C-alpha cells in the first residue's frame, strides 16, 4: 500500500468515525442521562447512577396518556395514508406525461408547505364546519403531508413495475380486481410496508402541525414540549431509551425473520 493510499484510508476511517459520532453522540448522551440522579436531563454533573427515572416514567399517567394518543393518531394516519397514497401513485403513473407533471406538482405541494400552515389552515377550515381540534383533526392534518411520502415511495416502486404483467393477467381472463389483488398488490407490498412504517414515525414525531389541531388532546411531542417549559425530568429520557430499545429490537427481529425466509430451502 502506498503512502497516499494509507493517508486516504486514514482520512476515510476518520471521516466515518466523525460521522458516526455526530449521528449517535446525542442519542448516547440522552440515554445516559436517564440513569443520572440529577433532577434535570443532563450527564454533567453526574450525581450518581440510578434507575429511579424508569419508575417515575412508568408512574407518570399523563405521559402514558399522551403516548397512547400519539399511537392512536399514528394508527389512524396509517389507515388513511397508505390506501390514499397508493391510489394517488397508481393514478400518477397511469397519466400521460404532461398531465403527470402537473398532478405530481399538486400532489407533492403539501410537502413544501410549512407544517404550521397546514395545521392552521386545517383548523380554520374545519372550525367553519363546526369541527374543533382533536384526534380527528390531528389525523387529517398529518395525513395531508404524510400521504405525499407514501405516494412518492409507491410511485418509485411502480416505476419498476412491468405493466404488461397486468395486461397478461387481463388477457388470461382475470377481472380488474383480481389483477390488482394477485399481481399489482403483491409487487407493491414492500413499498406499502415501508411507507406504513415511515408514516408511523412521521406521525409520532410531528409537532408543528399537530400543535394547532390538537384541541384538548396532548400527543407525546406536545407533552414533552410542554414539560420543557414546566420542568423536564430524566423520566422523559427513560421513555426515549425504552422507545429506542424497542425500535432496535423490532428491526433486529425483522431482519432475522427476513434472513430465515431467504435461507429457507425451496420444496
Amino acid at each position, binding site marked *: 500500500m502506498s503512502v497516499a493510499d494509507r493517508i486516504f484510508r486514514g482520512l476515510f476511517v476518520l471521516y466515518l468515525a466523525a460521522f458516526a459520532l455526530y449521528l449517535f453522540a446525542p442519542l448516547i448522551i440522552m440515554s445516559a442521562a436517564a440513569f443520572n440522579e440529577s433532577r434535570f436531563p443532563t450527564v454533567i454533573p453526574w450525581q450518581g447512577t440510578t434507575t429511579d427515572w424508569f419508575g417515575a416514567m412508568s408512574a407518570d399517567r399523563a405521559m402514558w396518556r399522551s403516548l397512547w394518543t400519539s399511537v392512536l393518531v399514528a394508527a389512524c394516519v396509517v389507515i388513511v395514508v397508505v390506501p390514499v397514497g397508493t391510489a394517488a401513485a397508481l393514478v400518477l403513473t397511469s397519466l400521460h406525461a404532461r398531465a403527470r407533471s402537473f398532478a405530481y406538482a399538486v400532489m407533492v405541494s403539501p410537502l413544501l408547505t410549512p407544517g404550521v400552515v397546514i395545521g392552521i389552515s386545517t383548523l380554520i377550515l374545519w372550525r367553519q364546519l363546526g369541527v374543533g381540534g382533536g384526534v380527528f383533526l390531528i389525523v387529517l392534518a398529518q395525513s395531508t403531508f404524510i400521504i405525499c411520502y407514501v405516494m412518492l415511495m409507491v410511485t418509485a416502486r411502480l416505476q419498476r413495475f*412491468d405493466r404488461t404483467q397486468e*395486461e*397478461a393477467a387481463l*388477457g*388470461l381472463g382475470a377481472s380488474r380486481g*383480481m389483477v390488482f389483488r*394477485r399481481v399489482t398488490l403483491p*409487487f407493491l407490498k414492500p413499498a406499502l410496508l415501508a411507507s406504513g412504517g415511515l408514516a408511523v414515525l412521521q406521525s409520532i414525531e410531528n409537532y408543528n402541525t399537530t400543535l394547532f389541531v390538537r384541541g384538548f388532546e396532548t400527543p407525546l411531542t406536545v407533552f414533552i414540549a410542554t414539560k420543557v417549559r414546566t420542568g423536564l425530568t430524566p423520566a422523559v429520557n427513560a421513555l426515549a431509551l425504552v422507545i429506542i430499545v424497542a425500535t432496535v429490537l423490532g428491526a433486529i427481529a425483522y431482519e432475522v425473520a427476513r434472513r430465515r425466509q431467504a435461507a429457507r430451502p*425451496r420444496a
Partner: protein
Amino acid sequence: MSHSVELAQIGMTFGTTRAVSDVSFKVEQGEFFSILGPSGCGKTTILRMIAGFTEPTEGRVLIGGRDMKGLGPNQRPTAMIFQSLALFPLMPVWENIAFGLEARGVGKAERRRKADELLRLIALEGYGDRMPGELSGGQRQRVAIARALAVEPGVLLLDEPLSALDLKLRQHMRAELRALQKRTGVTFIYITHDQSEALAMSDRVAVMSAGLLQQVATPRELYDNPATAFVARFVGETNAISGRISDVQDGRARIDTALGILTGRAGQGARTGAQGTIYIRPEALMPGDPVNALDARIERVDFEGAFALVHGRFADGAALAASVPSTRLAEAPAPGAETRFGFAPEHAVVLGDA
C-alpha cells in the same frame, strides 16, 4: 365454435399518428399466420387490437364471426404471449401457468393437476415450485407458452416471443412452436420482424409496412410473387433494376433498362409505358447464362460450401448479389473480373413503380 379471426378495414390513430390504415385479412381456424414487418410498421398494434387491449378507431375485429367490439381482453377467446413474456415474478411457476384457471374459479387441486400436465407438455416436469427468476430464458419462454395454453384459447397471439433468445435456442423453439400448433390445432397469430422466421413457420404471412398491408400470401408466393416493391425487397434478398416497361404480353413484361432489355413475369402494376422495376432473386442469376444478359464486375466471392455468394456491381453501378451453386462456380471468375450473368424470365418479376 370456430376461431377464425377477421379484420375488416381496421385503422388506428394515436393522436395525430396513423399507426394502422385500412387493414383487412382473414385468418382461418387452425392456421399458423404471421404478420411480418419492420419495427414500427403497426404489427403489434394489430395484435393488441385482436387481443382487446386497444380498440381500433375504425373497422371491426371478428373472432369466429362474432364482432369483438366492446369486449375486453378478459372476455375474448384469445391469449397473448408478450415480447417481455410478462411472467408474474412473485408466483411460482405452477401458479403462473394456472393463473387463467384461477381467474375462471377452478379449484386449487385441479389447477395444480392441470399445471403439472402442461409442465410435462413443455418438458419442465418438476419445475412447478420454482420461481420464474430461477429459470433460464428458454424455460421462461416455455412457461409463458404453457400459461397461455392453460386457458385453452381459440386464438394464440404471439408478439415476437423468440426475439430475446439466442440463435440456436430460437431455431429450436421455432420447431417446437410449430409442432405445438399442429398438435393443439389452435389458431396462431405470430408477429415477427424476422423474415426467415415468418417464412419457415407460417401457413400464410401478412407483410406490413408503415401501417399498410402490403400482401397476404403463403411464404412461397411471397417470395416468388411479391405484390409490391416493399415485399420484394423486405422478403429475401433481391437485385432491383429500374426502367421503362415497353411491352406486356402473355404474363411476361419487357423492361428497357440502362443495362439492356430484360424480360420477367408481369407483376402488379406492370403496364406498357409505365415506369417499373425488375426484381431478380440472387439464386436466379447464373454466370454465363445467355438469356437476359447482364454485365457485372465481381467484387467479392464468399464461398459457403453448397453455393457461393457473389457480390459485385452492374455496369450502371447498382449492387449485384448472386448465389451461385458450387457446380457452376467455375463460370464465375475471381474478384475484379467482368462476368456476364443471365436469368430465366420466370425467375424474375416486373412491378410497376408506385
